[in-house]
């Protein structure tokens, strides 16, 4: 590896809290948050009561396990790699959908013990790296750090430098101690920017190829829809970095520009890639529904100077899809939805709900930053009024439960995190999971049909709720949702 590769991405990334003033605790309305954001008075507050949340280590582990052929080593006690099996499931399904033979994702835990935290875990990490290289002959090995390895001060980057000449795989250290950030996307920054170490300088420029960052929850049918649209613009998609051959990671800088299917996750990486290799980027919202897919395509078109082509495409697609959506709108009009994902996805699905005549009563996001929140929220406030509840919480089940109880929505538009919570409070779920097709124009139609289906038989959630005992005191539901956000008023 040439030394210039070590200039960027090889050091600890700034946290989202510090770099973007990202917040993880807020309850208010769409109008309120937009107003506060513009006045600069939207500040992070702590919760006095909190529940299981998310850490910076989760996304590097899960995502790097899904780079084709890669081995991920969690330099941690054994529990930190707990999500590997679930990722294995997503990985196998993801490979099947891409016509690849299913195989287990490769993850190793250094299994730090009491002995290791006293005497250092370096030797175990060295053994794991050497063995991973021999066992799997992978193109790359990502090494992620943990709370334990961080506090005991293991020099992971030093070990990697020392071992690199001895192994065939490219070693990619990712500094992502869990305690560093309460914002899960700090982990995305650590993960994606670590890949800058292995992206080669461009030898050529491929003007017809757009680099597209794919989050792990975006399954193949969504990529196919994006490819269909880009194809009509004469563009090829190069997916990055999941389920893709490692050479497509290496030559990422040769593309004409980069866009993301989730600008929340790619925020830091785009800026770093631009600085290092001058690759242009755009950060439109996730392309869900008509308006936000138009937005996404227009931003891409502007970056590549093909605005007219894009307008033609939009016109053509609308003519085709609108009648189908109108039909579905008749069935869905007036329903009330609770939306819960990371903020980028929530707001994009809220845009689709608006187009389907569904009222959004609550939009939940795991974090908020002006960078990837404000323009979307202002757009939505104009289109559906700004009185919907906007909730920001790195999970926080008690607040979700409070809002389910208060709003009694007709359905949840949500994923793995909120799905069970909704059902147990009697709210049926129209899930967006790895495997759900919902992006672009055809995805909008498909997902709207899923909602119709989800509402056809709500027996499970209705009956379930009658048998569930929530763990909260009754008094909690009489308080305000934001009661535990911020210092106590004494």
């Amino acid at each position, binding site marked *: 590896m040439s030394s210039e590769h070590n200039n960027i991405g090889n050091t600890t990334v700034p946290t989202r809290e510090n770099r973007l003033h990202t917040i993880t605790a807020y309850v208010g309305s769409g109008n309120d948050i937009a107003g506060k954001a513009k006045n600069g008075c939207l500040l992070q507050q702590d919760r*006095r*009561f*909190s*529940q*299981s*949340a*998310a*850490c910076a*280590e*989760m996304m590097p582990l899960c995502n790097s396990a899904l780079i084709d052929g890669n081995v991920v*080593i969690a330099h941690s*006690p*054994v*529990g*930190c*790699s*707990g*999500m*590997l*099996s*679930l990722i*294995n499931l997503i990985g196998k399904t993801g490979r099947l959908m891409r016509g690849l033979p299913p*195989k*287990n994702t*490769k*993850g*190793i*835990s*250094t*299994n*730090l*013990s*009491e*002995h*290791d*935290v006293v005497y250092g875990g370096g030797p175990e*990490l060295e053994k794991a790296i050497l*063995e*991973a290289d021999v066992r799997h002959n992978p193109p790359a090995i990502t090494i992620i750090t943990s*709370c*334990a390895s961080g*506090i*005991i001060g293991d020099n992971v980057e030093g070990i990697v430098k020392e071992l690199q000449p001895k192994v065939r795989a490219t070693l990619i250290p990712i500094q992502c101690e*869990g*305690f560093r950030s*309460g914002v899960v996307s700090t982990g995305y920054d650590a993960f994606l920017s670590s890949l800058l170490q292995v992206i080669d300088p461009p030898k050529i420029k491929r003007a017809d190829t757009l680099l597209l960052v794919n989050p792990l929850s975006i399954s193949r049918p969504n990529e196919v829809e994006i490819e269909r649209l880009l194809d009509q613009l004469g563009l090829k998609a190069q997916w990055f970095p999941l389920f893709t051959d490692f050479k497509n990671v290496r030559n990422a800088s040769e593309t004409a520009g980069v866009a993301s299917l989730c600008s929340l996750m790619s925020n830091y990486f785009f800026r770093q890639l631009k600085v290092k290799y001058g690759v242009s980027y755009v950060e439109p919202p996730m392309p869900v529904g008509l308006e936000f897919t138009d937005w996404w395509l227009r931003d891409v078109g502007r970056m590549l100077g093909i605005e007219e082509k894009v307008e033609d495409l939009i016109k053509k697609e609308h003519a085709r899809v609108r009648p189908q959506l109108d039909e579905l709108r008749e069935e869905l009009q007036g329903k009330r939805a609770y939306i819960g994902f990371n903020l980028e996805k929530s707001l994009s699905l809220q845009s689709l709900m608006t187009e389907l005549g569904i009222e959004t009563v609550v939009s939940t996001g795991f974090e908020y930053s002006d960078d990837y929140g404000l323009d979307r929220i202002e757009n939505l406030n104009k289109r559906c009024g700004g009185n919907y509840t906007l909730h920001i919480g*790195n999970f926080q*089940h*008690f607040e979700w*439960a409070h809002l389910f109880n208060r709003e009694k929505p007709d359905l949840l538009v949500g994923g*793995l*995190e909120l799905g*069970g*919570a909704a059902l147990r409070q009697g709210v049926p779920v129209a899930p967006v999971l790895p495997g759900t097709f919902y992006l672009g124009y055809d995805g909008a139609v498909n997902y709207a049909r899923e909602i119709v289906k989800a509402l056809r038989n709500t027996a499970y959630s209705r009956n379930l709720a009658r048998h569930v005992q929530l*763990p*909260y*005191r*009754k008094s*909690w539901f009489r308080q305000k949702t934001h009661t*535990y956000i911020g210092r106590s008023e004494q």
Partner: protein
Amino acid sequence: MSFIESPRSTCALGGALAYINSLARTAPVIHAGPGCGSVLTFGQNFDGGYQHIGHSGGFAAPSSNTLERHVVFGGEDRLREQIGTTLEVIDADLYFIITGCTAGLIGDDVRAVAGEFSGKGKKVVFAETPGFKGNTYTGYEIATQELLRQITKPSRRKRQLTVNVLGVVPAQDPFWQGNLAEIRRLLDRIGIRTILSGDGDGLVQLQKASEAKLNIVLSPTTGLAAANFLQETHGIPFLQQALPVGTETSFFLRRVAELLEFDSGLLDTVIREEEDYLWKHLIKLSEAYAYILVNREFGLIGDTNYAIGLTRFLTNDLGLIPRFVILTDEAPQPLRSGIEAAFDGLENNIRPQVFFEPDCYRIADLVRENRPDILLGSTVDREVAKELSLPILTLSFPLTDRVALSNSYAGYRGAVNLAEDLGSAILSA
């Protein structure tokens, strides 16, 4: 300890959390980094055959979510605040503080903070369970022992025909609830009451655990910490028995009756009826046995708890040939010779090769080197089964290709389930 590819367990914090999730009206208070509770929910409840368990389990688990400033300046104030607010928000009889790596490494005095809340009408207990202390089984050991130490009251006398059941780790055994229900059903039939049953125990049972006449430890490795504590402090002897499956269950019930010194008239009737039930179904299997099961050599990959009971049933009742057993739970060294011995004395003195191996890559190699006809293992082992074209029944952790609700592989009914599921796995391969 050594590195592990595709681990089959979470950490000590995970084991403690799983145990708390088996208790009635008990809320955990996780004092750890922000991701621990969620990673363990994904990595344990999902990987244990998809189970949402716990009074305040899953994403509802209270957690202090300590960040860098707590690591630098200490997390005790944050923990104090979190316990106070948990008492306000969560309606529970018992609040159980468990700690993760950060608290363990920076040395927060959890005992002192927990102590501040005692005697205020709320039961607050704690256990130090940082992930680096060990795997899920270790966490279960620490949490059970600490809970009994802090909650169980001395008893004036023992109650006749009562037992505590220990050693089955929730979710790590995906079929824990079904297995414990079968054990409880059988004990119940012969007139024995459980105080701690391992599933849904509440504050009252925990306080009265000292009244039991006998502790039953359903594992060669796990549950010993609690059993030793109850023996030393409350004078309760214990019987250690790997989860019994099939006819082995009859020996188990007889041992229990013997130790509790009670009349065996009812016992004989129950055993006869239960064995009749088992064989009624195994008779049904006889017509197709030669087609489906005869002469099959099996390889088994699982934890020690399961492996012994399953091997005994498959060999001694079902007439299969045990080729190898791979024990994945990193049993403590001093216990290993005893565990090896548990595979002696099978039908016709057939002895499987016994390996202690948690690493998935080396496990796959062992399967290749000792190629069996059928495999029992976890979802991870599907890959090597496919490579070797072996039928596989998945039943051990991590289990992500099955849903585990009430199914069981223990006792007589569990044995029938096992024969049924194994036959089906072979036929559908």
